[in-house]
């Protein structure tokens, strides 16, 4: 069955749905195209019609079809209607993306590459343009450890391909820009609570306000607690000494997060913080099995002050000053005596990152044809510290304190050669104290042979600088440091075909070819037999991505996507580990005729995944269904979801210090979520405000 999934999908499901889309949708949407119909719409309705735009691709708002990338946008409406719980759920739904999990962290795979031990450092994730990747592992944490509550996301821009020409390190396979909601999106107090399987509870309270005059404010706090799976079975540990393979009550998660923003006349202050505590049930790094003492704490926070203004009516300036912090503390329980009995040794593993960022972007349009953006960004890494020691007996293995500075300059020109032809050219120079400078270009030619079609030909180079962990982490007995590491690079060639038809149907086909060099992997120093990080692998990846979107009248929405990809080592020909060849996905939102209810259905097939030992797990089909309404009663929205509805057993390969080749995942889970927004009259009398308010101001 497993291998039939994609073929069934390609040869029956896609044509069938495509056909339905065209036949049933045609007449309704053709009417919408009629100018007389647009004419009869009210201004309020006109303001709801979408023209897809993106900011992150070029650092200015542009239509998606003009952007130098293949882009997918996920909106807050989809987050509600598909019942996404975390940012990882959102990314899992994106065509060409897949997210794995080792019961501690989640990992993003795309473009034929998945690095479970790399903490997503070959992608750049931004919140409102603020870099989220930290400065020790360059990692970004996307599940319960993500700083933003899922309900605060307004939209997610997924910009595939190399982004280093604009964003520098880590923008290797994609840049993902998360745009948050603002005070005016609430204009009230909102409380939300949900309860789900595995004793999972979450609560949120949010205050948002956009007064006619004065600053727009958003403040939000979230608390989350989950006992997790109370009895996890790992066949690799199936022996009497290790509780017959059962890890009992060792899968709990807890997090608190806060987010706030204040903005006034282009000046914006934003702050976020999350602290997540996870019990690790998998006994990583040869720790004691079935001991809930092995756990990790991850904290990520930032404060970002930015000023966005147009001077002299021509010069658009974005200035940013930000302070960031990342803190990790892992406790690993070891049975050093070998007796299987306490007292155990508690190994303490720490990372602490702290950095300041300054950024200045200046953009201006010249001769109506050149949209030029120049910028500079400096990152002052005041702390890139790692230390590791045992408690009782106290033994220090590592105590490494670092600081560094990264400076960069970039220039981009979006040149409208003719109304139907755009050239986007960008170049960025980054300077690191360790390896020196690196220059990364991106050139894209965007051609609209006619209004609804776009061809994009993209060439780009991206890099990832070796991180502090790769450069300096060593326990000085089995590992050694390699300070001569060079950055990894990828050269990408991509052709994107983008076709709209009818009013809201949309087809994207993209073919990409990636040639990555100097991948940093753990190897062995032939001189002394110690393991260390080396620039060893060259990986070639190629693939095709396909996406078909349709929107019907009354809120029907469907998306079909498939990715066929293949990555292998350029020298040995070995296939890339843990990455699927096929990723077909189907999404459907169907409105129901009662109280604005709708059903959101997702089917996500992942073809088989190779483990580090060369065996395979999967493939598997995951289905999620959510029944939701934005307004059950006045102010109350509700959703009920079933995840992994088919109750499939599935697992993800791992290489993050696990004895297991793969880590099995949760079976069917349910969740009920209720959100209540208080009437905006709670702001006594003089409130004004929202864009959609019908009543007149006092």
């Amino acid at each position, binding site marked *: 069955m497993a291998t039939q999934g994609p073929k069934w999908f390609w040869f029956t499901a896609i044509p069938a749905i495509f056909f339905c889309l065209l036949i049933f949708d045609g007449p309704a949407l053709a009417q919408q195209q009629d100018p007389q119909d647009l*004419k009869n719409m009210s201004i309020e309705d006109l303001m709801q019609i979408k023209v897809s735009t993106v900011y992150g691709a070029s650092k200015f708002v542009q239509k998606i079809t003009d952007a130098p990338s293949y882009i997918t946008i996920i909106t807050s409406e989809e987050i509600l209607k598909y019942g996404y719980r975390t940012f990882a759920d959102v990314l899992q739904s994106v065509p060409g993306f897949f997210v794995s999990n080792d019961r501690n962290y989640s990992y993003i795979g795309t473009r034929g590459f998945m690095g479970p031990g790399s903490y997503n450092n070959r992608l750049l994730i931004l919140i409102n343009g603020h870099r989220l990747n930290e400065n020790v592992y360059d990692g970004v944490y996307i599940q319960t450890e993500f700083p933003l509550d899922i309900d605060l996301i307004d939209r997610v821009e997924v910009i595939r391909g190399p982004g280093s020409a604009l964003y520098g390190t880590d923008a290797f396979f994609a840049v993902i820009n998360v745009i948050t909601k603002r005070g005016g999106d609430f204009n009230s107090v909102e409380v939300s609570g949900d309860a789900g399987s595995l004793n999972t509870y979450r609560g949120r309270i949010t205050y948002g306000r956009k007064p006619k005059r004065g600053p727009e404010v958003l403040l939000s706090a979230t608390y989350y607690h989950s006992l997790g799976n109370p009895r996890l079975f790992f066949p690799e540990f199936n022996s009497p000494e290790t509780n017959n393979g059962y890890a009992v009550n060792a899968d709990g998660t807890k997090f608190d997060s806060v987010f706030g923003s204040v903005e006034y006349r282009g000046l914006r202050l934003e702050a976020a913080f999350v602290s997540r505590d996870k019990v690790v049930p998998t006994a990583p790094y040869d720790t004691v099995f079935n001991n809930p003492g092995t756990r990790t704490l991850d904290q990520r926070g930032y404060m970002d002050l930015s000023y966005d203004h147009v001077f002299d009516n021509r010069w658009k300036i974005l200035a940013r000053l930000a302070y960031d912090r990342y803190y990790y503390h892992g406790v690993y329980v070891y049975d050093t005596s070998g007796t299987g009995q306490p007292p155990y040794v508690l190994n303490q593993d720490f990372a602490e990152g702290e950095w300041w960022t300054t950024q200045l972007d200046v953009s201006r349009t010249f001769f109506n044809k050149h949209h030029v953006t120049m910028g500079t960004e400096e990152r002052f890494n005041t702390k890139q510290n790692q230390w590791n020691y045992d408690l009782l007996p106290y033994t220090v293995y590592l105590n490494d304190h670092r600081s560094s500075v990264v400076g960069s300059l970039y220039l981009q020109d979006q040149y409208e050669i003719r109304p139907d032809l755009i050239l986007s050219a960008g170049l960025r120079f980054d300077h690191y104290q360790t390896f020196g400078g690196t220059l990364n270009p991106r050139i894209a030619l965007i051609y609209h042979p006619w209004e609804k079609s776009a061809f994009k030909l993209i060439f780009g180079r991206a890099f990832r600088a070796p991180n502090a962990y790769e450069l300096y982490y060593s326990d000085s007995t089995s590992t050694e440091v390699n300070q001569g590491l060079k950055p990894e690079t990828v050269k990408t060639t991509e052709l994107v075909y983008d076709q709209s038809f009818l009013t809201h149907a949309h087809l994207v086909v993209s073919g990409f070819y990636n040639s990555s060099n100097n991948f940093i992997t753990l190897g062995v120093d032939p001189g002394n037999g110690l393991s260390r990080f080396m620039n060893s692998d060259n990986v070639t990846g190629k693939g095709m991505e396909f996406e078909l979107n349709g929107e019907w009248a009354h809120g029907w929405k469907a998306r079909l996507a498939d990715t066929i990809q293949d990555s292998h080592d350029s020298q040995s020909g070995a296939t890339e580990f843990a990455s699927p060849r096929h990723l077909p996905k189907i999404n459907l939102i169907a409105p129901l005729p009662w109280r604005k209810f709708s059903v959101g259905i997702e089917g996500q097939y992942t073809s088989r995944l*190779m483990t580090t030992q060369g065996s395979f797990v999967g493939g598997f089909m995951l289905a999620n269904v959510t029944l939701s309404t934005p307004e059950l009663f006045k102010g109350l929205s509700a959703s009920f979801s079933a995840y992994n509805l088919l109750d499939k057993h599935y697992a993800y390969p791992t*290489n993050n210090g696990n004895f297991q080749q793969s880590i099995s995942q949760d079976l069917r889970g349910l969740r009920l979520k209720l959100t209540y927004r208080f009437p905006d009259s709670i702001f006594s009398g003089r409130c004004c405000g929202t864009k959609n308010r019908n009543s007149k101001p006092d």
Partner: protein
Amino acid sequence: MARKRRIRGFAAPELFRIGRPLGMALAILSLVVLASGVGRAQKDVPFEYRIKASFLYNFTKFVTWPPKTFDGDAAPLKIAIVGDDPFGSALDDLVSRTAIHERKLVIERRNWNQDLRQFQVLFISRSEQRHLDAILSGIKGASVLTVFEIEQFSARGGMIGFVFVQDRVHFEINQDAAIQARLAISSRLLTLATNLRSQSTSPGD
């Protein structure tokens, strides 16, 4: 760390028996329908500008001009597109056989250096960015509603500027500029504006 192993190449697609003929037939049919759709689409005005045309038409409903702006009761409400015309036929189609405030709507095309004081509405195209100051000083004192589609237009003395907000076409209003031109913009429109530049404490009717 043995990360990589060779595996077999692409398995040849040997299955998909039953679904295939049906799927292929539907695919071909779909392509035919799609092709006809694409053919139609070629001469279309960009969707964005059909929406903006509709906005422009709607704006005229919510603005009151001083009576002496018009040459008599039968005079039409005249809209000029200044510079490159992004609307194609969309705006003309929209306003044909339509009256606003009991006046016929007329669309004309003009260059920046022509006389624009006779119009009630100017849509100033993106191409006229350099001539903006000249255009605005040319109509100074006249009751002309100026609509533009670039950010911060209001700051430069225009009255209504189109902006994109969360994938949607929205607009900013500079009420001060409208008041100077003796134009009254209805509070309904003012409430809907994404940004409102206004000296008065509350939007008046």
